[in-house]
């Protein structure tokens, strides 16, 4: 894999090649070529991922870790290879630190549940940030209710950055865990998680990083970050839905009780007592999403083949160009103007509700997300009920940004924004 960053022209040519790998991008809606700009919600799937799923289902369907027969051994091998691929992708020390789950949400629930049974006590504090997705708020709320702990929240600035100067004081001897998003799904902010982790570790506090919006857009190395937990979803990195990853340092997986009980997570069961399986199997009760893991492996390999450095460089160019073009439009206010951003742009248009923006754009063949993006505290902070959000993936082009801007002009004329009626 070459990670050399290419010239702008070379990158553009590469992107046109990448686009050929995504059949959906060839289709039209309402007679117009689709412009898919909702990659923070989910991404399109390259043919390599669909082929991997099909290969498993047509050639190797069988259960894992059970059969003594050929097919099952093959399926087990593919499933465990997928685990090793994830390990290498994240730079984890060993494959046993990779737990397959349904997605980021389940990964966070797993950690919250287990910390709730081991470390979080009455009076403990769970430190979150104001820009967390609901999936990194609600699981902690549930645990806080059960244990008598309380949530504390690191504030954000009007630019949509974490208020870092408030961080050290929020870390107290009662802080049981810090849970922070790597890249904000509604603001695009890239948080300085390595620094946050280091400061927490100086006080002996573990840190969970929600990486759902990060892994598809920048190289991530969990050992470099030194995070205790890292969570992401397969479907946001060009893989299937229903498969995701929890990375956890081995010491935590050893210390944690099982999350769910069932088959595959046990060594020996009697009605009196059960001996649990080794990590990570202790956390994978029941038949796992075998096809999903195999599809995820194909997706990660695809992304590595494209090169995350190149993807990041290309998406940065999309972000720069789209930010510049959106600011030309009358009545447009960007929500989230952090110094370091991933290719996510939230905005509002004065006098036009985001839902109406979404409908007009839809008829132009452009798919964007409108709403609160499961970050209602962020919406409240900026005093808006909802925003329109554009989020880029590796296959988006500058020409698509132009189509977006053209369609937004249509919105502006229709609603007569800033005297443009």
């Amino acid at each position, binding site marked *: 894999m070459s990670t050399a960053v290419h010239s702008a022209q070379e990158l553009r040519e590469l992107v046109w090649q990448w686009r050929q790998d995504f059949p959906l991008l060839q289709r039209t809606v309402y007679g117009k070529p689709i412009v898919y700009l909702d990659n923070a919600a989910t991404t399109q799937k390259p043919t390599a991922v669909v082929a991997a799923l099909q290969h498993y289902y047509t050639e190797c369907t069988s259960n894992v870790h059970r059969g003594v027969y050929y097919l099952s051994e093959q399926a087990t091998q593919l499933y465990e290879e997928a685990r090793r691929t994830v390990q290498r992708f994240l730079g984890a020390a060993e494959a046993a630190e990779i737990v397959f789950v349904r997605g980021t949400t389940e990964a966070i629930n797993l950690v919250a549940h287990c910390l709730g049974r081991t470390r979080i006590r009455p009076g403990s504090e769970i430190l979150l940030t104001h820009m967390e997705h609901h999936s990194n708020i609600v699981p902690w709320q549930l645990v806080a209710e059960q244990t008598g702990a309380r949530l504390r929240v690191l504030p954000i600035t009007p630019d949509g950055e974490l208020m870092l100067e408030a961080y050290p004081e929020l870390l107290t001897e009662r802080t049981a865990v810090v849970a922070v998003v790597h890249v904000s799904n509604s603001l695009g902010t890239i948080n300085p998680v390595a620094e946050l982790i280091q400061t927490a570790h100086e006080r002996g506090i573990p840190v969970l990083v929600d990486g759902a919006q990060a892994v598809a857009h920048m190289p991530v190395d969990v050992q470099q970050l030194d995070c205790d937990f890292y969570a992401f979803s397969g479907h946001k990195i060009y893989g299937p839905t229903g498969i995701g990853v929890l990375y956890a340092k081995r010491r935590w997986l050893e210390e944690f009780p099982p999350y769910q009980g069932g088959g595959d997570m046990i060594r020996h069961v009697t009605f009196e007592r059960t001996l649990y399986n080794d990590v990570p199997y202790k956390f994978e009760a029941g038949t796992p999403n075998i096809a999903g893991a195999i599809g995820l492996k194909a997706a990660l390999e695809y992304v590595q083949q494209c090169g995350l450095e190149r993807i990041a460089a290309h998406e940065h160019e999309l972000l720069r160009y789209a930010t510049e073009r959106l600011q030309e439009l009358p009545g447009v206010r960007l929500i989230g103007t952090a110094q370091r951003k991933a290719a996510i742009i939230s905005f509002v248009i004065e*006098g036009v*509700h985001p*839902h*109406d923006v979404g*409908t007009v754009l839809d*008829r132009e063949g452009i798919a964007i997300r409108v709403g*609160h993006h499961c970050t209602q505290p962020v919406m409240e902070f900026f005093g808006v*009920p*909802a925003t329109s959000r554009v989020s880029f993936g590796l296959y988006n082009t500058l020409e698509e940004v132009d189509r977006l801007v053209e369609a937004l002009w249509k919105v502006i004329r*229709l609603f007569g924004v800033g005297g443009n009626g």
Partner: protein
Amino acid sequence: MDELQELYQQIVLEHYRNPRNYGELPEATHRAEGYNPLCGDRLEVMLRVREGAIEEIRFRGSGCAISQASASVMTTLVRGKSLAEAEELFERFHELVTGTGAVDLEQLGILAAFAGVREFPARVKCATLAWHTLRAALQQRQEPVTTE
């Protein structure tokens, strides 16, 4: 006219920009809240009902053009109407935006401005929120209604 222009007719945009009967209603006898969690549309409908008729109606809230215009138009239509007439208008509006049958635009009057909504299934809930909230207010329901 393309479907977008059909949806965002001048009447709709005009009511969105200048909503009628907007604000608090003192001495309301009935009130209810409506909420569409998908898009965050929120509104409150307040009524003063005397002798089986809607003497006064106001609404307030925030949301998309369709939900706000629909609420505004609704208040102009049901004011002064009997409860039975209001219910009949509810049914007529509901059929207009969710039905598949032919509509008689002339007979519908100003409601015809919402005839384009049925081509946008994702927006039907926006259009019907005010009407569902009206119905909840008249039925004195305590829980906020939702069109989800």
